[in-house]
């Protein structure tokens, strides 16, 4: 059964064509990967589907309803779609548990005890229940990503969108994300994942679409897409990514991610002087 159907989706911004007629279907319980170089329109594509961005043409049908038409309840639509961001986007002033309960409390109007119980179940599903009361700054990159996924799952969405889920993670932690994708796929969670990470695209094990310059140039199983008869664009991208991987400095997998990140703002800018 088709859950999401995208037909000839177009987006033009400032005279630039970002999406140039993208079409694909996502079936119930399917995992699909959209791969492509930076600037190919991958993230924008996801954002058009939950109306964080407004396409200039095409049709998106989600759960049998036209998503782009007038009179669509955007907030209700977004509650049906779990979104996982590349930089985790956890709320830094809330604990892991509070991050997961937020939508349950304020969108579902669930009593605190019930929301906590449900959130703890989702955190346990991501093996994060032991860290429920920690703040984002006290978690490693991979742990933050697990909380972000638990948060997205808490509302029982019809589909999960992943926007570059491994780009802020080191290889060891990227493997964790792949394991989670496999776990969720086995639980028949519908997922759409955009990435430029070749490792993720191959290891996720879903059907892969190759997006470049706002168009899907190739689609297939991993082996077809990366095999000897690969599309020249895919091959060029593949070689470029491989070269970058070879010239990149080695990554110290023992170091937690958040130690490598710059500290957050310690105070406001723009204090007025009298």
């Amino acid at each position, binding site marked *: 059964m088709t859950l999401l159907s995208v037909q000839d989706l177009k987006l033009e911004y400032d005279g630039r064509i970002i999406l140039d007629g993208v079409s694909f279907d996502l079936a119930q319980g399917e995992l699909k990967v959209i791969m492509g170089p930076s600037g190919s329109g991958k993230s924008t594509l996801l954002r058009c589907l939950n109306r*964080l961005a407004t396409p200039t043409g095409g049709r998106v049908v989600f759960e049998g309803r036209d998503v782009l038409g007038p009179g669509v309840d955007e*907030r209700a639509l*977004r509650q049906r779609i779990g979104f996982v961001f590349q930089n985790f986007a956890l709320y830094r*002033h809330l604990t892991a548990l509070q991050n997961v309960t*937020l939508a349950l409390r304020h969108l579902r109007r669930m009593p605190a005890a019930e929301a906590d119980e449900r959130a703890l179940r989702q955190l346990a599903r991501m093996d994060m229940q032991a860290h429920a009361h920690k703040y984002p700054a*006290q978690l490693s990159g991979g742990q933050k990503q697990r909380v972000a996924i638990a948060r997205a799952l808490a509302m029982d969405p019809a589909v999960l969108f992943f926007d570059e889920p491994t780009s802020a993670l080191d290889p060891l932690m990227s493997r964790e994300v792949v394991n989670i994708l496999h776990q969720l796929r086995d639980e028949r969670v519908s997922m759409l994942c955009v990435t430029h990470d070749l490792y993720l695209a191959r290891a996720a094990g879903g059907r892969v679409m190759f997006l470049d310059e706002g168009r899907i140039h190739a689609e297939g199983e991993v082996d077809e897409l990366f095999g000897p008869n690969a599309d020249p664009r895919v091959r060029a991208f593949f070689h470029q990514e491989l070269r970058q991987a070879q010239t990149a400095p080695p990554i110290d997998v023992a170091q937690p991610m958040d130690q490598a990140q710059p500290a957050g703002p310690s105070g*406001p800018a723009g204090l007025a002087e009298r």
Partner: protein
Amino acid sequence: MSFLQILLQLAGGVGYTIMVTVACSLTGVVVGLGVAMLSRIGPPWLRGLLGAFTFIFRAVPVLVLLFIVFFGLPNAGLRVPPLVAMMLSLGVIAGAYLAEVFRGAFDSVDASEVLAAEAMGLSRFQILRLIEIPQMLRFAVPGMINEFTTVLKYSPFAYTVGIPDVMKEAMSLSATTLRGVEIYLAVGIIYFLIYKLLVTGVWALEKRTRIPGLTG
């Protein structure tokens, strides 16, 4: 009359000084928060209007606005009690400055968190209330302390509209004893102590609500 007696005599006005400072600071927080919030989520024309408000009220001298409110409004048939006049002048001017402090602090909230909240299906107002304001207020503490201190130091203007604060006590005392230097030295010490109390109080509150990794 010993220095200690002078201090004790002046202490009678401390309550009024604190009352004026707290009332004007709170007015400033309410005005500043309102302006900063509306500029963040309001339509462009409202933003322009609020920008003009902060621009103008940061430019007007406190004493000028105080006299306009206290002596001018009665001409228009509005009698304004002294404390309210202070709140409408010093308090509103503090609000214009705090609006800028809050604007800067709002800009320190990570845009990706706001986007994530939008993607979750929260309304713009919910995002403001649940994500942005709780973080913003923590970022704004140093700027708020600055502003509260300024309000404290402008509070002596209260004596010009008849509030018997520390300054008023000092002026009467100085007129009867002619020991101006000692008296105003004592006034300085009293203001320093109030300042110390204020700063300690705000930082204690900040420490109690501190979140690991969010601020310093």
